[in-house]
Every structure is written in C-alpha cells, then in structure tokens.
C-alpha cells in the first residue's frame, strides 16, 4: 500500500530533475503547482477527514466560503463512492491527491475496488446501483454541479479514479 506514495515521490523527483536539466531550476508553483497526497482506510468516518483536508489545503488560495463548501461536497461525494461502492466487498485504501496550480484546484480520488462497468450510466442523475441502501443517486450530479470539470476512469476489477478541477475566483492581491 505504501507503494503509491513512493511512486508519487519518485515522479515528483523526476519532474524536479527534468526541470533543472532544462534550465528551469527554481520554477515556482506557477509552473508545476503544489500537491499533497494522502491515503486512508475505507471507513465512513474518514469522509469527514477528507473534507477537512481539502478545506485546509484550499485555504492557501483564500477561497470564498461557497468555494470551500463546493470543494467539501465534491470530495465527500467521491470519497463516499469509493468507500461504499469501490470497497463494498472488502475494505481497502482510498487515495486522494490535491494539487494547486495558479487558482485551479485539482482533486483526484482513487480506489482499487470493484470498479464501474458502465461509467456513463453511473453518472446519470438519480441512477444508483444500490436502491436498497438509500442512495439518492445524486453523487456525480453534485460533483458536476460544484466543480468545473469531472472525469471518471474505471473498469470492473480495476478500481476507479475520479478527477475533478475547480477554478477559484480571482481575489484582489492583499
């Protein structure tokens, strides 16, 4: 499970050395952005944990209250999907990567769970694979409503990756 972090660090290291090699040493966050990466167990109380993390990470962009709420809701939906659907059969780790580049905040939520056979159908409003579990079927609709872009990459047995981007309003320099 630790491999995820190691691989990610190595990639970042490569990116840094490539930048240095091409004479872009010292390239600021404007070029590459800055990221945090975390993984946590698929337990329902970690939904709150993930929301707090995105709110704190977004704080460095001085977001509006509404932008923070939008990010928290979208993250909550993606993480809850990973916990309920991805790991419905057995518990596993949920991976979340947050990246800031200029005023754009990207969220990636990944699981190694059961995956989705028909992503298009899963994203339809009100569709739920678990009617008996009181799911509203609005998870992806909320992600799309509160973020500027949402992509889902999934296949049965191969887990699911949700990538979302939110472009925050420009704020006056203080």
């Amino acid at each position, binding site marked *: 499970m630790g491999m995820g972090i190691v691989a990610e660090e190595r990639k970042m290291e490569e990116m840094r050395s490539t930048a240095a090699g091409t004479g872009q040493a010292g390239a600021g966050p404007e070029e590459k952005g800055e990221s945090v990466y975390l993984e946590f167990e698929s337990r329902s109380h970690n939904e709150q944990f993930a929301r707090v993390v995105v709110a704190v990470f977004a704080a460095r962009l001085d977001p509006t209250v509404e932008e923070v709420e939008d990010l928290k809701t979208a993250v*909550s939906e993606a993480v809850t999907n990973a916990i309920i659907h991805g790991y419905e059969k057995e518990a596993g780790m949920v991976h979340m990567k947050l990246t800031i580049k200029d005023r754009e905040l990207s969220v990636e939520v990944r699981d190694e769970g059961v995956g989705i056979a028909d992503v298009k159908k899963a994203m339809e409003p009100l569709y739920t694979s678990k009617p008996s579990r*009181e799911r*509203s079927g*609005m998870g992806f609709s909320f992600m799309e409503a509160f973020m500027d872009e949402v992509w889902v990459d999934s296949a049965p047995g191969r887990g699911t990756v949700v990538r979302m981007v939110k472009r925050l309003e420009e704020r006056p320099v203080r």
Partner: protein
Amino acid sequence: MENGTNYKVRGTVLYAFMPREVDHHSSMRMKDGIAKARVSCPVTRLVFDFSKTDFMDSAGVGMLLGRYKEMAAVGGEVFVRNPSPRVKRILEMAGIYRIIRDWDGQDEEGSR
C-alpha cells in the same frame, strides 16, 4: 455529542435534531436512531431540524428520501426546519421540496 443527533417526541411529532454534518457516516446512525424512536411511539409527522447543520451531501439526501418513503407508507408526513442557506441549496438541487415541506410549527401540540 458533537456530531450526534438528538430526538424529541411531542404528541405524535418526532423531531430529529440533525448533526453539524449530515453525510453517509452520520446518516447511517440517524436511520437507526429514527427507527428506534418510531418503535417507542406512534409518529405521524417527522421533522428534520437543521438548526445545527452546516454540511450535507447526497448521502443525507438519500437518508431523507428513505425516511420520507417510510413515513408515506403509513400515511405520515416529513418536514424540514431551519436549514442553512447551504443546506437549503442542496435540498433544492435534489428536488426535496417537491415532497417535503418546511415545518412552520403547525399545531404541534394538537394531534395526539
């Protein structure tokens, strides 16, 4: 209980005082809590009080719809009270107001 739900019964009205955050985790607990409260007394109206709530996602919407179906099945009704602007927006986006009304304290002591 910082993020817990409290219940109160008055006549045949059950008030569920919602936690600060209504997500999948807290919704699972509320489903059980409301089921227990309904066993102990005949409830005809269920009021979700959102006074303390500042976060709700689609799992909370699913929980509300589930309680609505249960209450409707026995001729009962469901209401929401005092949602924050954010919670209200979520309820509106989910179309909840088509089936669940705002509670304005209608003859709360009246029916027994």
